[in-house]
């Protein structure tokens, strides 16, 4: 009993301390505050501006915000996905292994036997948790500021049907979940890149570059065959949750795609990290 439960509880302890360290960092808080500022700035700008947007002008749903504050969260999500969310996730994921190596603390984390696999899993779980917290921050901040500055009422879906406020909050939560899932493959790439170097800033920058690159490839029509295989392909696919009835097929495709990325880059990260000489 002691032989099997001791490493497991040690794993949970490690996860607990990893999450505590991650969410106590000032940098993490600064990034979450910056994420929350996106919907706030957006809502305040719309509130202060006197001109009314024509339908279809600006980012999707922006023209609806004045009639219904609940749209702030949707618009903020669309605005944040291409650059801001990948940027913050790139910072957290790029820091995972390289950050410890850079600080010279990696050695101490690996004193236990079979510690490398567990450390990778714990680090990845930390990044995944950050993805969830970041998207939820965006959704909650958007809903709150929207409710504070604009009237709140039934939400018109893309299909023209109208749903109530409670249903709309449920869909906001589902959208946050959808976006979290669609960022998991990218987080795995960040983890792998982080095992390649001892310089955290390099890993962060490389991870963010990968996300930008994938999105550039995703808009080139000549590479249409490649698009369904890009981890960023479904980043804006959460619009399918705003249709009536909800279209869950892209959610399934997306989950499968992200699982593939997690498997491939998880395996690469394992092989690289398990064979790495830890000198610091």
């Amino acid at each position, binding site marked *: 009993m002691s032989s099997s439960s001791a490493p497991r509880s040690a794993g949970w302890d490690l996860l607990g301390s990893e999450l505590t360290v991650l969410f106590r960092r000032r940098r993490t808080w600064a990034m979450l505050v910056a994420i929350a500022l996106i919907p706030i700035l957006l809502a305040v700008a719309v509130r202060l501006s006197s001109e009314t947007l024509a*339908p279809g002008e600006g980012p999707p749903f922006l023209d609806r915000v004045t009639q219904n504050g609940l749209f702030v969260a949707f618009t903020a999500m669309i605005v944040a996905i291409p650059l801001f969310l990948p940027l913050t996730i790139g910072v957290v994921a790029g820091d995972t292994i390289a950050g410890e190596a850079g600080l010279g603390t990696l050695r101490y984390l690996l004193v236990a036997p079979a510690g490398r696999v567990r450390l990778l899993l714990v680090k990845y779980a930390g990044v995944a948790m950050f993805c969830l917290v970041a998207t939820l921050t965006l959704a909650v901040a958007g809903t709150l500021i929207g409710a504070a500055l604009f009237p709140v009422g039934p939400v*018109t879906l*893309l299909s*023209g049907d109208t749903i109530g406020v409670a249903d709309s909050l449920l869909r906001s939560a589902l959208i946050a979940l959808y976006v979290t899932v669609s960022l998991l493959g990218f987080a795995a790439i960040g983890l792998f890149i982080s095992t390649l170097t001892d310089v955290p800033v390099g890993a962060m920058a490389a991870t963010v570059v990968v996300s930008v690159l994938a999105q550039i490839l995703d808009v080139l029509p000549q590479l249409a065959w490649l698009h369904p295989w890009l981890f960023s392909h479904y980043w*804006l696919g959460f619009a399918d949750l705003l249709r009536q009835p909800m279209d869950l097929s892209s959610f399934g495709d997306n989950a499968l795609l992200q699982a593939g990325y997690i498997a491939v880059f998880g395996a690469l990260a394992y092989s690289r990290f*398990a*064979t790495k000489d830890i000198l610091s």
Partner: protein
Amino acid sequence: MSHKSIKWLPAVVVPAVIAVGVIAVPLQAGAAVDLPDKTAQQVLLMVSDSTVTAFSGTVEKTANLSLPAIDLGAEMSGQAGKQGASGSGDAASGALSSVLELLSGLHTARVYVDGSAADGSVTDGSTDGPAKVRVQIQDRMAERNIVSNGSDAWLYDSETDTAAHLAIPAGAAASMKDKMAALDAEAPADVSTPSQLADRFLSEIDPSTVVTVGTDGRVTGRTVYELVLTPKATDTLVESVSISVDSETGMPLQVSVRAAGQKDPAFQVGFSSVDYGAPSADLFDFTPPAGATVKELALPQTPANHAAPDVAAPDTARPEVPTEGLPVVTGTGWDAIVEIPAASVPPELGDNPLMSEVATKVDGGRLLSTSLVNVFLADDGRFFAGSVPVDQLQAAASAQ
């Protein structure tokens, strides 16, 4: 050393396993299907005997017409903004860009049809029957909806937040049925049963077309018979039209049009998922959202033999076509050429910037060339179109 190389195994094995899976799963889906042999006549009978009255599914349309690449997105949204002040030039190019949009790229739509209330007449997607229909064309971050519940038809575009409403007179469906009955009565005696109808259809198209049953296959996981229509004419751009018919329900699930000398189908519409259960009834009750711009459409005054409103294309700004300038069709079958006299061609169409973007200059006019259809705009303003090589269109233009 060997210890280390073992640790590199996952990095090789996992991607390899995924690659194999990616290749093997579609192969398995496309595994050979062997259905009991049927003749073309029997497959046609299956279609006409089909009892499917309600279904829902996702339809995908891919077009690979080798159209010149143009930025339709920009054109479309530009049009959408201007549409309010609808000058006829705007309307013409709006219609043109809609057509071009339909003919290019990939579109996905969800389709819900419930005809069970209307004594089993299948309308497979067309909205001119009494069935309840909802079509949702999915765009990026937007959606276009067409809803018809038998008494009201709605069009809703989420991007512009506009809705259009068309009231269908209560008599439309009934008079439609009367007309069908009248047509049946007038029909020659030898088409009183579906099987004779199938025979007659086959013999009617026999001079121009070879109808065969192709290889059995699968569409969206269902086994299908493939009905292949091959033109006998050698100078047409169409190589073949194949219709995949569900082997259990007799419902056509996919239509592909192949162009001569092109590997991928030039145009393909088919289900990527289908469900034969009745869709939820509240899908067909549409109320325009608060704040949307609602436009009432008047039912076009149609000639007596065309009672059903064409809600699929409510082009209110369609220019009135003078009756003396009706299109002339030369030839029959696949290599027919349609000529539209200069008088009937809206002048805006020729001067349309979009037109000049997609058309190329050729001898005697301008040409819009695709792998299936060529459209020739002669310098004197006449329009020629047909599934034939360009030189035939030019010959037809210079012959008169």
